[in-house]
């Protein structure tokens, strides 16, 4: 699934590690989600949405 994580993260000047810390996951997880190699579970998607203060559909793009 495509997403805007990299851009959103860059806008806030957060590193992958910093975002990982805010989400309580590993940096690898952030990398895997960001590059579209892993689709997060619904709970993690909601955590991502809360961290960016955006709706899920503003972060993840339907194929």
């Amino acid at each position, binding site marked *: 699934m495509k997403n805007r994580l990299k851009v959103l993260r860059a806008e806030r000047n957060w590193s992958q590690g910093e975002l*990982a810390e805010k989400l309580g996951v590993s940096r*690898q997880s952030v990398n*895997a989600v960001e590059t579209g*190699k892993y689709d*997060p579970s619904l709970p993690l998607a909601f955590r991502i949405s809360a961290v960016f203060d955006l709706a899920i559909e503003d972060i993840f793009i339907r194929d």
Partner: protein
Amino acid sequence: MTMKRDEQHPGFPWATVLWGVVFFAGMIGTGLLIRFTQLVPAPWSMALMLLPMLALVPMSRAYARQSDSTACASPAARRYNTRLITLSFAYVFGLMVAMYFYREKEVTDGLAAALLALLPAIPTLGMIWAMARYVLEEQDEYLRARMVRAAMMATGLLLSIATFWGFMELFGVLPHVEAWWAFPTWAIALGLSQFWNKVREQ
């Protein structure tokens, strides 16, 4: 917009690989030394195998350091490493004691022999338990999914090898292989699967 340093892939884990090489070279070297020289009498020869195993300690420390710096390991992964190393020592020690009594003291009586066989078997079962605990304790869904995927691949590989070998053996093409090989084969297959997944991720 500037991206920070940790965007890049973490560096190659030289220290971990180096200690891994030391471990394998030590194990093979000590094995050959025991096999082809009579310098160290049994049961001390088996105790000698514990020496190269000490390399596992700095190896896991180096891995944890690398993992911390890239925030890739979780507390569950660290517990898993500690458990596996402890159980590996228990396995070598158990095997050493069991082989000594089996060969030198000729303990071959049913119950006593069964108890001896349990000495290396129990730590091995412990390793399987440690893997199950890891999957249960891992809070990071991606790391957990990665482990589960690698374990499924390893299971497929083991079942394929066992089926192939079993029929080859039945028709007298390949020699008999003892059943305890199942776990080391699965563990090697797990390592290969994890490596393959890592390559695919990059």
